């Protein structure tokens, strides 16, 4: 039995970065939250225009880096001073000075892993299904096109009113994001 085509949102195309930025401000002012501005490159000022909070990634990486440093000190201290103490060129078993390079290295390593995988987690990537991919036009976003997408799950979403809003913000064209019927 064929399921009726489901509207998952709207996709509006804009002329360039300046137009996208201006439109983003208006969409955010209209109270929408489940919308996104798609562009081939990051646009300066877009975070403020969309009223986005600062990314928490810096704090995550900071915590991870200090954890890495702490773990490295534990590893080196425990193996060198507790589990199998060996006298090596008369240095103390817990030679914290000599432990610094590895401590630093593991701090950077954990920090970098957190930066990358934390970024992917915050962005919910990998995500191979998204409403915007229903649009054929959307393939141009990684080339030279600028879009705003608004998802149908947004509480303010109304297919007609939202379309009117997008056209009023200077959209060149607005299209429905419709899921393909499943057999």
């Amino acid at each position, binding site marked *: 039995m064929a399921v009726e085509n489901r509207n998952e949102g709207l996709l509006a195309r804009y002329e360039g*970065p*300046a137009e996208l930025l201006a439109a983003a401000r208006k969409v955010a002012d209209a109270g929408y939250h489940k919308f996104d501005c798609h562009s081939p490159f990051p646009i300066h000022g877009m975070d403020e225009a969309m009223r986005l909070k600062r990314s928490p990634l*810096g704090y995550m990486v900071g915590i991870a880096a200090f954890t890495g440093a702490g773990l490295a000190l534990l590893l080196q201290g425990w193996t060198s001073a507790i589990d199998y103490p060996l006298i090596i060129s008369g240095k103390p078993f817990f*030679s914290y000075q*000599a432990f610094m*390079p590895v401590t630093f290295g593991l701090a950077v390593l954990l*920090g970098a892993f957190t930066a990358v995988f934390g*970024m992917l987690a915050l*962005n919910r*990537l990998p995500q191979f299904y998204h409403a915007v991919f229903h649009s054929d036009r959307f393939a141009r976003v990684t080339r030279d096109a600028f879009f705003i997408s608004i998802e149908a799950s947004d509480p303010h979403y109304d297919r007609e009113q939202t379309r009117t809003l997008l056209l009023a913000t200077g959209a060149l064209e607005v299209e429905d994001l419709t899921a393909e019927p499943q057999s």
Partner: protein
Amino acid sequence: MSSIHNQEQQWIEGHPTFGSLTDQVSELTEKKASRTWYIALAVSSSLTVVLLALIGYLVTRGIGVWGNNIPVAWAWDIVNFVFWIGIGHAGTLISAILFLLRQQWRTSINRFAEAMTIFAVICALVFPSIHVGRIWLIYWLFPLPNQMAMWPNFRSPLLWDVFAVSTYFTVSLLFWYVGLVPDLATMRDRAKTRFKKIMLGILSLGWRGGNRQWQHYEMAYLLLAGLSTPLVLSVHSVVSTDFATSVIPGWHTTIFPPYFVAGAIFSGFAMVTTLAIIVRKVFALQNIITVRHLENMCKIMLVTGLMVGYAYGVEFFIAWYSGNIYERFTFLNRAFGPYAWAYWIMISCNVLVPQLFWFKKLRTSIPVMFVAALLINLGMWFERFVIIVSSLSRDFLPGAWGYYKPSWVDVGIFAGSFGLFFTLFLLFIRFLPIIAMSEVKGILPQAQAGADSIPHQNHSGRS
């Protein structure tokens, strides 16, 4: 409204649009490979086979097949390790330090410079791994619980090296991949065949270019740059402590960490320049990698070359000023002893050749900078040879002196490492975008139109 951006000269020539730039870079991976590419790949992969075969020979026969002897127990193996790891440093400098310094010109060269870093570190890792002799016990380098209940010695610089270099490799790879994701998405959206669509679809993780993604992405990029900057400075510093913490005259000096880092950046930029000159010519990327980009790289070579020259001078001064007779002998021996030829190759290539770049005419001439960069690569290899071999061959007691000559296996493995490097590089330029498209688009004048933060905001409203 065309000549608005005269306040700051543009880095990308020919006024490309977002679309034409995408086409220009993506098409390199989409059209059929040229005959030259196949010939180059055939040569470099044959050399890689030589490398693998000689490693097999080395492992079965032992490191006696090298020219290493006592007193020169470290020779080409460690020279090549330091040489390759140093080359990697320019890629990280371009991707991280120039990013933090907001140097827009980095966007044209960062992608392949980062690729160069990764491939150079792979080549570098070959050497210490086979140098240990019994490679099947290589896991002893890592703190893994084992039946002997033994742990690595964390007070040894050789162990620091293991952590520094493996961290460096991992972080460089992560940094490179993060940078690639938006460009892989571009290739995904252009892909024609089903196989390519699926492969690129998986690799690009479902990237949508939404600002909610860019926001975290840019933060991640900034953080990675912030982490890589001290990391790259620490890696060659740690490498230098392998030498500096020993008591060998000529090694036991405090100048080593900054001296090695400057040398690494110097040699790395020479390699980036060499590759950039070839790549821009072969792929007609002269509008993206302009002469001004190359000129900037020459300036960095001049600065780091002066630092290296200064370090050579200070070493000599301290050898005399310290009053240590062994130290003094070592330096006189370097300049006038049996390895004097290597020393003077080093001085001519690393100190004299970069002086050419004082002159604008010479640092904007492609043939001059190509030859100069090759000579600097050569000179930096000899620098490591001089430091390692000349110091070891004559240390304290004349009765323990010796002379080192490489064997054919040494030469073959070194040549093979170039094969490995160029094989990886050729595969990279064939299958991945060699210019960071999303970053270059971000510095085009039409990308700035929307920004409030851009100083020259004298547009008369385009709509």
